[in-house]
């Protein structure tokens, strides 16, 4: 049994569902799955306290861009927490329809960009496209003038 009794607590209000924690965890204890337009991130039950594998390295918390993960001492008796799963709705690419990012991720990106480069709130805006389609659109736009020239 480990000495510490701290446990991992994700904050649902803060988490944007980016999955940085899933790749940060050396034991791969934090997992994610995607189905349809939903993404779920699962933190094991009693991560930290009561979790045999968690070394309390806190790499997940360090990786989290939103500081949404904290390791705290549970109040009172170490209660038996069920597996904690957070669900996120995904945004579909406006061009190909593939769900590619959570609403919150895109909001975060949009806000961060707007602070630097004021952009229109909605509409014909690359953030609405998945990376693959962005590349395709960018490619097509670059080719446009050349194609016009070559069709004449």
């Amino acid at each position: 049994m480990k000495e510490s009794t701290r446990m991992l607590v994700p904050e649902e209000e803060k988490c944007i569902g980016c999955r940085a924690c899933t790749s940060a965890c050396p034991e791969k204890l934090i997992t994610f799955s995607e189905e349809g337009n939903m993404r779920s991130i699962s933190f094991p039950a009693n991560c930290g306290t009561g979790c045999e594998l968690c070394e309390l390295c806190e790499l997940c918390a360090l990786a989290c861009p939103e500081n949404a993960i904290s390791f705290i001492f549970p109040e009172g008796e170490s209660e038996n927490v069920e597996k904690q799963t957070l669900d996120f709705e995904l945004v579909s690419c406006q061009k190909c329809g593939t769900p590619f990012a959570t609403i919150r991720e895109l909001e975060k990106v949009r806000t961060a960009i707007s602070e630097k480069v004021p952009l229109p709130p909605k509409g014909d805006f690359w953030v609405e496209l998945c990376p693959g389609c962005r590349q395709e659109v960018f490619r097509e736009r670059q080719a446009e003038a050349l194609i016009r020239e070559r069709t004449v």
Partner: protein
Amino acid sequence: MKEVMVRPERCMGCRSCEIACAVEHSESKDLFAAVMEKPTPQKRIYVEYVPEYNAAIPMTCRHCEEAPCTTVCPTKALKQDEITRVVTHNSDLCIGCWTCSMVCNYGVIGRQKEARVAVKCNLCPNRDIPACVEACPTNALVFIEVKKLAGVKRTEAALKLARGMQGKAL
């Protein structure tokens, strides 16, 4: 719509257009004050010297139809007015990806060093005649509608011809 038309055969390479352009796009709009300004005011017209022909050609934005620079700009920092066809650049939106510069067929999109953003001709919105045209001593630059330029050229050609005939008659 009027455009800055270039008549390369008249250009002496004096670069008055370049200076006038930079001054027009300065804070003070005064040559002597502009020199001292920081960031240094930047020209948007370029007089290209062609060594092979020992000649100079002023190059400036053609405000192309369906301008490639506006098509590729991801942030819409470059925009084209649907009616006047004038391509303007909003430096607040520019992320310095330089795709515009890459696709421009005339190489007339420059870089503003301090802000690291694109710089290009906006046809001097506050003036009746763009500064470069006004400054040109030889009328190598004219601000005119394309179809009218043909008329001007016709008149000139006719004049030349008439002079020639006169010369012969004498």
